[in-house]
């Protein structure tokens, strides 16, 4: 109980301090670009809680979920294939390095030409950025499977899907989770960027609209929404991670434990 309390306090301490700092330093601000935090919070409910949740926030989050999900599936699937074959690795490594080096935002104009300006384009932008950390980490994870466990599978004839599920994917899961965590923050960034051009709804679009309409407190409140979404998603991710990697943390703790 005390441990939970302690963790909550530690988790909240710095954010509270920063918000208070922002509150007091901006309180008397007359700079139109930096309105007082009190004003931003004041416009928050009527800006976001009156229909924008379903009109802007949910569509953005849906695209993020679909793009991130596709990147996860495709990244892990390709990673397992590439990581499991020395030939494929040698063949694809230079190409992967090239593709990975392209910043996804520059793909926006290209993808607009290819996929149009609707959801498909925005989802593709998210996929094109999220897939790399997942793919490359999965390749590393699959490459590093334990030999003795591999022999165990062979000698007990654990093959096919069962081997994939209980050996390959689980062995690689710490690396896959690392890649997925990096991809999540990239995904949030790309969700916003993909909506800044050729969009008619979404969080990125709304924030740009407010800026163009000189609705500066509303614009800032949009930034707050993004921040909150980021924190909530990171917390959800940590919940999932704790379930998926319970064994990994246990092994690590056992290795560190008293000798």
């Amino acid at each position, binding site marked *: 109980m005390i441990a939970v309390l302690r963790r909550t306090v530690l988790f909240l301490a710095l954010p509270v301090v920063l918000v208070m700092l922002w509150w007091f330093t901006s309180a008397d601000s007359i700079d139109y670009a930096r309105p007082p935090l009190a004003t931003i919070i004041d416009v928050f409910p009527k800006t976001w809680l009156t229909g924008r949740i379903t009109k802007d926030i949910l569509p953005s989050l849906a695209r993020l979920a679909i793009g991130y999900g596709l990147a996860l599936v495709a990244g892990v699937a390709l990673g397992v294939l590439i990581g499991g074959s020395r030939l494929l690795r040698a063949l694809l490594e230079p190409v992967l390095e090239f593709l990975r080096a392209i910043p996804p935002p520059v793909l926006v104009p290209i993808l607009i030409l290819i996929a149009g300006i609707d959801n498909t384009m925005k989802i593709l932008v998210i996929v094109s950025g999220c897939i790399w950390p997942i793919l490359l980490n999965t390749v590393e994870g699959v490459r590093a499977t*334990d*030999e*003795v*466990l591999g*022999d*165990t599978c*062979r*000698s*007990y*004839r*654990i*093959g096919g899907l*069962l081997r994939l599920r*209980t*050996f390959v994917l*689980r062995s690689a*899961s710490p690396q896959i989770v690392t890649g997925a965590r990096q991809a999540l923050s990239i995904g949030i960034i790309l969700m916003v960027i993909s909506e800044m051009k050729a969009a008619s709804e979404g969080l990125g679009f709304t924030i740009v609209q407010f800026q163009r309409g000189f609705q500066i407190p509303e614009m800032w409140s949009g930034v707050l929404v993004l921040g909150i979404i980021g924190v909530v998603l990171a917390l959800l991710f940590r919940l999932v991670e704790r379930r998926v990697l319970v*064994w*990994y943390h*246990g*092994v690590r703790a*056992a290795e560190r434990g008293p000798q």
Partner: protein
Amino acid sequence: MLDIRGLRKVYDGHGRQVEALRNITFQVDGGEFVCVVGPSGCGKTTLLRLIGGLLRPTGGEVAVAGKTVAGPPDGLAVVFQEYGRSLFPWLKVHENVELPLKAKGMARKDREPLVRNAIEAVGLADARTAWPWQLSGGMQQRVAIARALAFQPSVLLMDEPFAAVDAQTRADLEDLVRSVWHQFGVTLLFVTHDIDEAVYLGQRVVVLSASPTTVIEDLAIDLPDDRDQLNTRADARFVELRGHVYSRIQQAKRNAPVA
């Protein structure tokens, strides 16, 4: 049950050929308990991997139940030396034991009694739902033995399974192996570098030379079937047999070309 004829293995790497096994021939009858002992570095693990179908021989052949081994043979289970790396850390004890049965395609209701029985036979009934990394080394090796037993192999190979556990645990595990061998009626080939252990456990001891390895003696252990750590090890015949194997191995080491 096990027929090893003229087995030879040469490792070929980096322009250097290493002859690990020169010529190994011996047989193991169904239900027999045979120990293979030899000086360290004589290729015991190589021999076991060849029998287990995890390696291909350079010459000669291995037959299990009359069938030449070309991959991991049916009805053969292996207990590896590295217990910490042969159990799946993301599966609980009973799931580890159950996995090879799933791979066999066995129905859940048939799997359950086998798993329970095997876990009870190795004295781990209370640790069924523990994670492997929560257990001591000796207990982890018991899980590996339970997994092998649940698989219902006709031949069980053990590769220095107790090399990494402390002396007292080792004595317990030796008695455990004797008792499950009686209980399950399995053919057992036990590889070790420990002469005492080989003589204490086996009905026969196959003595290997130093590398390049041949069989220098195939010795029947005419000790009573009912063995225990205190009396058997104090038995004059045990001391005599141990002394004999010891001197043969010393002799083999002297005759070996200096590597």
